[in-house]
């Protein structure tokens, strides 16, 4: 009995260690690695999906592509925020877009999906349009800085996928956003 428990502990520790080691793969991949993304490594991808399935802190909105793409500096920022009923990229968002544009322009095989979102106020269908306009604003910024059209897809979720489920201005400010999601090459054929 005692021995059994000991073995279980060792197994648990080994699994935890393995998970940590695999999760660590992401940040180690340098942006300069010829457009390679961690998702190309099936083991790393499996670990990423596992972490999300385990109900990690990201919650229901976590994307399976979250661990993909470049890390470090502004490239670690994957969200651009907007003012109410606006699709104008402002403040730090300008720098975040520029950093991703630079990365994408120098890594021709890297691809992103720009996901436009709004806060919950107003009508749903109008918000679908507004989320689309925000995604397009980021798309245009990337294209102007040398990214090619084939590297970018856009989608609008309107108000349907809030990052913060609250109903006040601080939650709304977090929800008026475009998320930059790096697509792993393996993930692309799965899209209908």
């Amino acid at each position, binding site marked *: 009995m005692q021995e059994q428990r000991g073995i279980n502990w060792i197994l648990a520790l080994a699994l935890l260690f393995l998970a940590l080691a695999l999760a660590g793969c992401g940040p180690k991949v340098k942006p300069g690695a010829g457009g390679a993304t961690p998702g190309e490594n099936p083991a790393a991808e499996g670990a990423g999906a596992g972490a999300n399935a385990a109900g990690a802190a990201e919650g229901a909105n976590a994307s399976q592509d979250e661990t993909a793409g470049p890390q470090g500096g502004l490239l670690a920022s994957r969200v651009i925020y907007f003012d109410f*009923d606006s699709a104008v990229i402002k403040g730090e968002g300008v720098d975040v877009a520029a950093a991703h544009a630079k990365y994408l322009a120098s890594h021709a095989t890297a691809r992103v*999906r720009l996901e436009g979102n709004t806060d*919950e*106020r*107003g*009508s*749903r*269908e*109008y918000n*679908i*349009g*507004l989320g*689309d*306009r925000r*995604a*397009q604003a980021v*798309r245009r910024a990337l294209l102007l800085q040398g990214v090619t059209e084939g590297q970018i897809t*856009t*989608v*609008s979720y309107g108000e349907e996928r809030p990052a913060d*489920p609250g*109903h006040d201005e601080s939650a709304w400010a977090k929800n008026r956003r475009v998320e930059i999601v790096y697509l792993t090459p393996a993930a692309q054929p799965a*899209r*209908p």
Partner: protein
Amino acid sequence: MRRKTPCVAGCDGPMFRTIFSPSNSPSRAGVNGAPAWSPDGKKLALTLGGTAGNPDIYVLDLLTQNLTRITDDPAIDTEPEWAPDGRSLYFTSDRAGSPQIYQISASGSGRPRRITFEGNYNARPRVSADGSELAMVTLEGNGYRIAVQDLSSGAVRVLSHGRLDESPSFAPNGATLLYSQREGGGGSLATVSVDGLTGLRLKAQQGTIRDPAWGPFGT
């Protein structure tokens, strides 16, 4: 990757038919949404965004599959609603800087006419069965509320008092509106009479309620 594609569902069961899909036409990328049946059931008004992300209103003839572009403006044009006579469409557009409601011929000819002028946010139009009144979501103070505009005089009455009221739907007799409201975490349904004097909240047993629609016979 999920896309929004208009489908038809049978009222008595889960019988779906895709009537218009981006997959059968590569130019149909982007937003496919806000479908609305014409009064005679032969056409569907809908919003298409395209790859450049410019939502405009189109009318799809369901028999011929002919698609007619109704609006062509860099603004967000969406939420088409048929006038009861089927000859014009009401829709939301922010072409003047903020969302307002416009009316345009359903044939695709002519220019849109602006209908709402009060306030900075008027969206999601619904017309009463006799075509005399327009219900919408309006921003009043810091609350999104249900308002009704008399289409002949232009007079506007704000009927609800919530913070996040949405999706008004006229009862077939035009006397009552059904809408959704959000207080706290969930959504519930509410009704209000068109004179704004009586209202009722319909709490859901579970889950969140949104986008109610009244059946054509009101029973």
